[in-house]
């Protein structure tokens, strides 16, 4: 049986460093190529040596597909393509292709310039890597080679996030990347058609969470910000430059406009402006509202949000600052946090998920004293709020996607093992399909049951259609007579006559004959007549003929009567039918064995 193998190199029972290998129909595909935020050593990148030792990846991989631009999904891409070595095609959507290099460059700057790491990829490498990228459009089927085709679906989550449907022959896999089933202020909801893949590889970040309605969340967020501003406090919102940041910006921008607030909103510079530019451009990837109103005003042209300068952090009075990165593990957000942490009027709102080991994770868990580098400790007096704004599907959303796609098997990645366990049980119970959750480096094998297409000759099809009832019922399988010819890698179903002709064979007739003894006192001719009338009574709707050469024909079955030599009362009936009439023939023989009913004239 053909098999599909899935091996996570990262994100198997874990969040971060998404990298999944799929072997399907003899093709090897790498889905995402991310890095881990929590580590600064070798564990940060997937272990590519697992794939192949000391050889080029190009020989092994047919293509690489990147679902969206978050670094835990594309951070290791230049490392893999330039330092490990891969020259094959890399697929990503247009917005991802545009925004990805900005983030990579930013990441590189932080690691190399700030932390002073060596042996890291360079700007040139990022550029070279991006040259290998082939952009994808939504719902466009792209042929990677003759057999492998991929198709992207809208995934919500961040601008340009996509789910991919990978298909080889009749086998297929859907990889969701990160997705969101509820729309937000700037993006729509994920959608997929009923493609019934063999495996659906889904993220499961919020496997055990069902979230409150987004409206409550938004209102809560706005209220918290508003109250803090009215108290004269400063609000820090650590975000990743792209994605949630834009949603929150739109939210605050419209709120500011509606409430006519004056407190400044700042956004940490550089990166954002470039990124906002792309948001303005890729309007088609946003939600209904923005798409409809961009003619009057592009929602991403902010009126109230200004660029942040480092010196502003010490300004008196209330302000709202969006600063990167989102988990408070480095960079500007951490600097501002250190400055503001001492004042209880201030507030920090964590709008997303925090990986273990980051400061964000620590303060969310209630730690009020933080150890900084150089043995200094930091008292955390400011308020810490958590608002789940990260746009991942919750448990209900995942179930909804399964209902939409109707997969045959389910595979969970990008989540914590315990939580996955729960969801796995639920999926198996609700949909009665198999669900897997491999750890990193563990291979899951799924056998598939591919359908084998067979060409059928039109004449045979028509003939068989005519035989059946008036209603062709697609739900019921139907038996038919024909000959299967396998020739040069193709399968053909033809009628037996044609098959004989094509193969140059002669047709052989197969006939069954049988004798039935019957007690009947009448003469042969009378008996025959009695049989004739009996059959006429029993078999309605069949042509029954009494031929002059003292035979009875039922369709093509011949019945003859002869008296036995010993006993004139015992008549011997001779039945003969061809192979094609086997059903009717055997029925007739059993019928006649029961004898003739009395009272026939």
């Amino acid at each position: 049986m053909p098999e599909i193998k899935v091996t996570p190199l990262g994100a198997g029972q874990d969040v971060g460093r998404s990298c999944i290998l799929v072997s399907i129909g003899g093709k090897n595909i790498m889905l995402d190529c991310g890095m881990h935020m929590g580590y600064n050593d070798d564990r940060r990148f997937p272990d590519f040596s697992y794939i192949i030792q000391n050889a080029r990846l190009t020989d092994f991989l047919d293509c690489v597909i990147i679902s969206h631009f978050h670094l835990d999904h594309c951070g290791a891409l230049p490392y893999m393509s330039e330092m490990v070595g891969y020259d094959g095609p890399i697929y990503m959507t247009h917005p991802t292709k545009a925004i990805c290099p900005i983030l990579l460059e930013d990441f590189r700057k932080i690691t190399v310039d700030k932390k002073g790491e060596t042996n890291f990829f360079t700007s040139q490498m990022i550029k070279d890597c991006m040259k290998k990228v082939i952009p994808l459009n939504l719902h466009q089927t792209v042929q990677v080679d003759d057999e492998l085709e991929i198709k992207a679906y809208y995934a919500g989550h961040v601008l340009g996030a996509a789910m991919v449907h990978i298909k080889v022959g009749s086998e297929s896999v859907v990889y969701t990347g990160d997705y969101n089933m509820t729309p937000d202020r700037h993006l729509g909801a994920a959608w997929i058609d009923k493609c019934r893949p063999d495996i659906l590889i889904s993220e499961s970040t919020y496997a055990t969470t069902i979230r409150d309605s987004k409206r409550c969340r938004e209102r809560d967020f706005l209220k918290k910000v508003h109250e803090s501003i009215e108290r004269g406090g400063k609000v820090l919102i650590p975000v990743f430059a792209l994605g949630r940041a834009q949603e929150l910006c739109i939210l605050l921008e419209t709120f500011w406009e509606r409430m006519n607030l004056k407190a400044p909103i700042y956004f940490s510079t550089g990166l954002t402006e470039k990124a906002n530019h792309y948001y303005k451009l890729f309007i088609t990837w946003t939600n209904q509202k923005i798409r409809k109103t961009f003619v009057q005003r592009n929602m991403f042209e902010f009126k109230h949000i200004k660029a942040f300068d480092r010196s502003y952090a010490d300004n008196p009075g209330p302000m709202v600052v969006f600063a990167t990165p989102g988990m408070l593990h480095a960079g500007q957000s951490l600097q501002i946090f250190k400055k503001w942490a001492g004042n209880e009027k201030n507030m920090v709102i964590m709008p997303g998920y925090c990986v273990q080991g980051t400061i964000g994770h620590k303060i969310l868990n209630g730690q009020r004293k933080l150890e900084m580098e150089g043995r200094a400790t930091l008292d955390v007096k400011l308020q810490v709020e958590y608002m789940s704004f990260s746009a991942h599907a919750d448990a209900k959303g995942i179930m909804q996607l399964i209902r939409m796609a109707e997969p045959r098997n389910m595979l969970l990645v990008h989540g914590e093992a315990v939580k996955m366990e729960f969801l796995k049980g639920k999926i198996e119970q609700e949909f009665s399909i198999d669900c897997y959750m491999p750890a990193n480096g563990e291979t899951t094998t799924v056998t598939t049951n591919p359908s084998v297409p067979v060409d059928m000759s039109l004449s045979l099809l028509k003939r068989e259609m005519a035989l059946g009832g008036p209603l062709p019922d697609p739900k019921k399988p139907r038996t038919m007579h024909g000959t299967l010819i396998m020739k040069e890698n193709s399968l053909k179903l033809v009628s037996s006559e044609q098959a004989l002709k094509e193969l140059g064979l002669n047709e052989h007739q197969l006939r069954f004959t049988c004798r039935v003894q019957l007690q009947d006192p009448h003469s042969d001719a009378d008996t025959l007549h009695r049989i004739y009338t009996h059959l006429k009574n029993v078999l309605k709707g069949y042509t029954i003929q009494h031929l002059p050469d003292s035979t009875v024909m039922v369709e093509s079955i011949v019945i003859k009567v002869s008296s036995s030599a010993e006993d004139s009362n015992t008549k011997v009936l001779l039945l003969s039918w061809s192979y094609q009439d086997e059903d009717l023939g055997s029925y007739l023989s059993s019928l006649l064995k029961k004898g003739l009913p009395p009272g026939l004239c």
Partner: protein
Amino acid sequence: MAAHLKKRVYEEFSKVVQIPHEEAPAKKLRLSKLSKSAALHIDLCKATNSTDALQYLLQFARKPVEAESVEGVIRILLEHYYKETDNSVRLKIASLLGLLSKTSSFSPDCIVDDAINTLSNENSHQVLAQLLDTLLVIGAQLPESPAVRLRLVEVAYKHLSDTYFGVRNKCLQLLGCLGLVDTPLGKDGEGPGSSQGGVRDVQSIISNYFADQDPRVRTAALKAMLQLHERGMKIHQIIYEQACRLLSDDYEQVRSAAVQMVWVLSQLYPESIVPIPSSNEEIRLVDDAFGKISHMVSDGSWMVRVQATKTLGSMLQVSPHFLEQTLDKKLMSDLRRKRTAHERAKELFASGEFSSGRKWADDAPKEKLDTNTVNLIASGACGGFVHGLEDEMFEVRIAAVEALCQLARSSPSFAEKCLDFLVDMFNDEIEEVRLESIHVLREISTHITLREDQLDTVLAVLEDSSRDIREALHELLCYTNVSTKECIQLALLELLKNLNKYPTDRNSVWKCLKFLGSRHPTLVLPLVPELLSTHPYFDTPEPDMDDPAYIAVLVLVFNAAKSCPTMPALFSDHTFRHYAYLRDSLSHLVPPLRLPGRKQVYSLDSVDSSSGSGSVESAQLFLQQSLNRVGTIQNLESPGAQDLLNFTIRDLQRLGELQTELAGAADFCATYLRCQLLLMKALQEKLWNMAVPLCLKQNVTATAAAQQILEETYKLEFLYSGLESRQVATIHHVRLQAKALQLILTARTRQGLDLLISSCEKFLQEVESFQRLFLSELPHLQDSFVDKLLDLMPRLSSCKPAELVKILQTTLRQSGLLQLKLPEQIHRATATIIEPTGESDNPLRFTTGLVVALDIDATLEHVQDPQNTIKVQILYPDGQSHVIHPKPGDFRKPGPHRHRLITQVYLSHTAWTEPSQVEVRLLLAYSSSSSAPPSTNRLGWSDSIDSLPPAEAAVEGTIPFSKPVKVFIMPKPARR
């Protein structure tokens, strides 16, 4: 460029050569109009190949065919059909047959046989489908003939097994439209399929196709079934299960139709019991269907989602606990049960502490959940509306809000529950959704009381920059019940903030506070000292009476005081003074109060409102009596009649002012009587018999009177709604009298005979058309001017103009006053311009030659079809005037018989040296042709409308019906 243009020209030219060539046959057709069929025949015979024939047919189809020649054309088409070998031509012929059978006053029963015959010989599936379509048209044209229907249904049965989906589609459509409704219902025990031979059961046959391989056929089958339902056939309950299965179809149109089907069945058999699969419980069918449809709210296709959400709203029989599940969404976090923000807010409110979300981890998950009980994929109705309200497409969200409204109106407990969700929708990103949810909340507001935190969210929307939203919210607040005095204070505060921010909202804010006050007198009472800033010992400064915010507070307090007699004791002196002022200037906002020591002043008002309906009746009686009194005037010349009329008119006008319910009727009568009075005066001139040159002066007044009467009659006819044909006849009668007067005056002054002859003819025509229009009313017009005139008609039409004038003069003077009969309800159309107020001293400056936009905001009452009739007139100081027709979108309808016009008009003028005022007013346009009362149509004159003389066909004009507002403008000369 020039070369390019030239090329273009040549291209066009070369085309021109070809056109006559193509048009030749068409011309021939037109010439031989006598028999279109013959021409077609010739054309078709001439056609050498199928392309030509197709061309001819296409051209033929462009022109209409008269009813009498349809049959001939059809014969020829059919004849050609049998000969034709090309599929496309046959297809076109088949479609033409269908088109032709639609021709009105042509009965297609004669071609049924032919059409059915063609079916049996047809090989091409497409043509077959088209022919069936034709049969469908024919069947639809012959609803009265069961024999034809039976045959057509038989045909449909025969072709149902076709392999082409189009044919099956059409057959199902035929069955749906024509299948026999009165087929005996399949006996319950046997079910479908048992009916052999005889009458086959349409439903079971159609339902067989629910499982067809082609989604289009499945859709058609469902649609056919729905069609049967619409035609009154009772759909079997067996279908329910099949329809439910189709809810999970792969194709959206099938799912969409299936949702409708399930809904229909749930309405037919709400109380039947259906088993729940995989358990041995049973539930009501309507609940089951409700669950299944709310499942569809999370469908992949948004069309289906809209359909499903809309449908949910109309399933009112569903049981309450199912209904409440649609708002349920069990939250969890890390497998621990978490309360929703709504629940938390409620709890906080209950514990008396208001301010949520500031405590650390107050949304921390509480109890640990048992993994087995968490049901992720909502079985049944769970969370259907939660999904719908959060949908990506605003169409779905709006549908969900509407559905919530419908369900909440019928179930108070559900209304209570869905409140939180509706309030949440006030923050939607799309304005239409916000607006809709505000409207919905208003509709269900009778069931609910807002909590403080909910009110807070509601009031936050008051700062919205959209005027519609704010006004809708004011409207909502008018009907809202709140629970505490803090709520009142909060609302007042926010409304004042709103007033401050958007001064144009003044009227609607005041109105809102009026209702708020009268609804919650006891809640306002403890706030009064604070609101009026009174102090037990010290005198506080008197607030500015013109401050809109202060007026707003007073409106709230006075309205509360109306049902709270202890409140006036808290007022300070100036409050009483302000009350007197406001009671006069804003009487619609400030109710009459029983204030100590002031009773006698307001006795009239208080009698008015306290005795309520009784006073209306007495006023009505008074009105009737006055009219009767007037009715006693026998002759226009009788002495004392003028005085009586004068007094009556005065009485009626005063009555209209006092009793607003009767203002329309009183006004109407007064105007009518004024017409009579004018007529009387004009006729009573002592000098009628004087020589012409001597009485020139008298003539002038009489002419003016005639003119005025004419104008008044148009006002009478078009300004009042609720007129019956009787009153219209009376009005027309007065108009006729005025015209007679005019004619007489013309005859006396002008000497031109030709002119006189033509105006005489015109007048006679008008008399005739009056007779025609009001034939049914003539018996009521006994002894009137027209009655007498009609008696003399044969003589009039033959006599000379001079003689005619003489007769007219005597009849006019002898005719009596026509008694006015009042209709049930009569309302005068009124308009008030709210904006501009005309108070501004700052001129609107703009550069000459450019335009300036002037915002106009007006309310219209009792105007029918304002989109077409209302115009804005701008009158410049130099006498120049502009009439502007507002866009239909500028009219809103806030209530029954009320319209609101919010528009912008553009002004422009040449340079002025000084600022000056332009007048803005609203006009009501009318045209007498459109005013024909509905009853006259019943007389059947509409058939003869072509022959109606054009003279009286349409009198177009406008009636100014709002007070003009002056706007100061200043066009500055352009600087160069």
